[in-house]
């Protein structure tokens, strides 16, 4: 584990961290200078103009230009800071294509993680150095927050929807993982670690451990087991939409809307099927809310992704 040239924010271990730290340092210098300047003025005025001191106290003349100056100067500087941080922030939004997918399920008070190839972990996440990783996260109960200080990244994890976080680790080593959103009794015990490994070691690590089906294979098993395939199959006698290659496709709905079948749409279609009825089909599908847990939902969606691309 190496650290940056300075330690105020702790070790620096992701591509995002370097950018965040640059802005932090700039802000620290700027705000430090402003604070020091104001403090100096207050102290100098307090001493120079203390009651009883023999100094010129002729009131200053009209200072409108000064007032305009100290209104507009901060405004320009603030817009500059905003532009800098907004630029970095927007750049961080989209994970690069081909990022390694990991699902994260948070629950009181633990982190459950699973790699695409099927390997599961609890309160610990192994990732390769130098390769982008994208986390798809949801919660089984309250709101949690996935926080890795060394990556300078944090994202709340919500029940009922997926949130996403991606990063590229730059340093091999172990870094703390915290839950940053208060979630009840053992909130402060909901901690773990991120283990960043050289890519070759990570590959070996991923293949070791007990053999497990990949998430998509597990999802396909669920697809059969829950009876989804009974209707959503070409040979089925029940009139239901075919799902091959559904993920990412545009779907036309009975009420005239068109939506893109993103992960949230797929999730809602399993749990709240009456919400978006596909044009030309009857609303006959039962809800699977309460029967499918967070990890299973994720596996089902992963399976749908594996059935082809739009």
């Amino acid at each position: 584990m190496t650290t940056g040239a300075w330690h105020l924010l702790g070790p620096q271990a992701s591509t995002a961290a370097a950018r965040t730290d640059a802005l932090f340092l700039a802000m620290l210098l700027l705000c430090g200078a402003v604070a020091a300047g104001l403090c100096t003025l207050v102290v100098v005025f307090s001493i120079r103009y203390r009651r009883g001191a023999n100094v010129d106290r002729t009131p200053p003349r009209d200072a409108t230009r000064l007032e305009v100056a100290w209104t507009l100067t901060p405004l320009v500087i603030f817009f500059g800071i905003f532009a800098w941080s907004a630029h970095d922030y927007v750049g961080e939004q989209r994970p690069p294509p081909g990022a390694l997918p990991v699902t994260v399920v948070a629950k009181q008070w633990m982190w459950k993680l699973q790699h695409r190839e099927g390997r599961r972990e609890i309160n610990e996440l192994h990732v390769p150095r130098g390769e982008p990783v994208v986390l798809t996260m949801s919660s089984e109960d309250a709101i949690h927050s996935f926080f890795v200080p060394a990556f300078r990244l944090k994202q709340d994890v919500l029940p009922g929807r997926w949130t996403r976080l991606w990063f590229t680790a730059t340093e091999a080593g172990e870094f703390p993982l915290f839950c940053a959103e208060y979630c009840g009794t053992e909130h402060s015990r909901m901690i773990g670690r991120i283990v960043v490994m050289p890519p070759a070691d990570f590959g070996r690590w991923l293949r070791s451990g007990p053999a497990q089906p990949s998430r998509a294979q597990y999802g396909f098993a669920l697809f059969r087991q829950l009876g989804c395939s009974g209707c959503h199959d070409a040979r089925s006698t029940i009139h239901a939409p075919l799902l091959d290659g559904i993920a990412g496709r545009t779907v036309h709905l009975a009420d005239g809307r068109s939506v893109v079948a993103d992960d949230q749409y797929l999730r809602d279609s399993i749990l709240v099927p009456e919400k978006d009825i596909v044009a030309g089909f009857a609303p006959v599908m039962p809800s699977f809310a309460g029967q499918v847990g967070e990890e299973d939902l994720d596996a089902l969606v992963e399976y749908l992704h594996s059935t082809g691309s739009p």
Partner: protein
Amino acid sequence: MSASYLTDGLTIRSWLATTDHKRIAILYAIAITGFFFVGGAAATIIRLELATPAGDLVGHDTYNKLFTAHGVIMVWLFLIPSIPSVLGNFLLPLMIGASDLAFPRINLLSWYLYVAGGLVTLAALFLGGVDTGWTFYTPYSTMFSNTWVTLVLVGVFITGFSSIATGVNFIVTLHALRAPGLTWFKLPLFAWAIYATSLILVLATPVLAITTLLVVAERLFQVGIFDPAFGGDPLLFQHLFWFYSHPAVYVMVLPAMGVVSEVLPCFARRPVFGYRAMAWAILGIASVGFLVWGHHMFVSGQSPAASLAFSLLSFIVAIPSAIKVFNWTATLYKGAIRFDAPMLYALGFVGLFTIGGLTGLFLASLTLDVHLTDTYFVVAHFHYIMVGGAVMAYFAGLHFWWPKATGRMYHELWSRIAAVLVFVGFNLTFFPQFLLGAQGMPRRYHTYPPEFQVLNLFSSAGAGVLAIGYLMPLAYFAWSLLRGAKAGDNPFAATGIEWQTRSPPPTHNFEIPPFVPPRPYDYDAQESGPASGLEVKP
């Protein structure tokens, strides 16, 4: 000469059924002081617990109940009512030459609502306990916490009506009861601040009331509003909550700015610098302050577009605050400055508020906030604003107007020592928390990794100093009531209209109609008085 408001009726009933704004202010002061020390006791146990990384003083649940109690009490039962309901109540009619507020009986009602809400809240917090944090985030508060959430929300709900009643009363008073000739731009900035604060209270508090009702509806009747298991949206709660709770920060800090704008010119013997800009800045903060709530939610899962907009607006709301800091500093220029206790507190305010404001810029920056939010950096930031800002100013105001309210001087030396202790203790407590947060220590952690211990020890030690600084005024103010020197009507030679009447004022405030000065803050540094308040003796 008629009796002072303090001696006009000596029975308990004459106090509990009073409609005199000055007596109601005293009632508020007593109740608020009680709640302040209860909330402070909770903070003391929290800091003791955090002296070590392990949870060795109290259990997880007790710790969670303690930080919830600390937050709920300090926000709703101390900070929000402190300056408006104590100092505002006492001073607003005096500052505008009126004999009372517009609705004296509603004023008394608002005190009873406050006390009733406060007692219900305390009952919930200490009989059963509540472990949601003062933010009550759903669905934890609605479905997963099995503590006394409903009752504490009832308490907060009732207290909210007290805020609304007080806000309406102040607004009408300022519109209807200003002395003849006292136009808006002759008002002291404290009155401007109370006006803007009242607008926020009236517009934002109903949203809090509705939100608490919705939480209770989901909690008791499983009405699906916030919990996705019932088809609700957990982020909806955060939007509603911060729509109230962010402006609530300005309810705490605008009146504090008002106090400081009275104290600094008086002890610098200079008119406040840029009066009009100061007044407009107050209104600017109050209005733009309604548009920045989403900066509490950058990592919540709200859309990136919303985060961008809220970030930009948060930078814009910092402009009027910056103007105010520059103007206070400029007020000292060419002054004849004396360092009485109120001035020490006010200067402390300027320093601490500046640090609070500057660190707010870090949190308004999107990528920095992603790292810093929900860490001790945020805890330090808002304590610099609320405690370093609002509480310092409350103490500045208490000392400044103490002679007016009681007719006696406080003890100058002891109060200066207390002011310095509070300043030092505050910085020792909260500055290390910036560093903890920057290194990633999450807030609301009962136990923490051992590498954070050194900074936590500094913080806990500072809390001890701070506690002494806060307890000292209890002693020397009590001493002052019995032994303090007689104050005279205007011991600080201040120019506000409230100083034209006697100390303590008669029940109806003014025996002869007050003189409205041609401009506010008509101080002249070239003919200043004695060099030190310590020399002022009867």
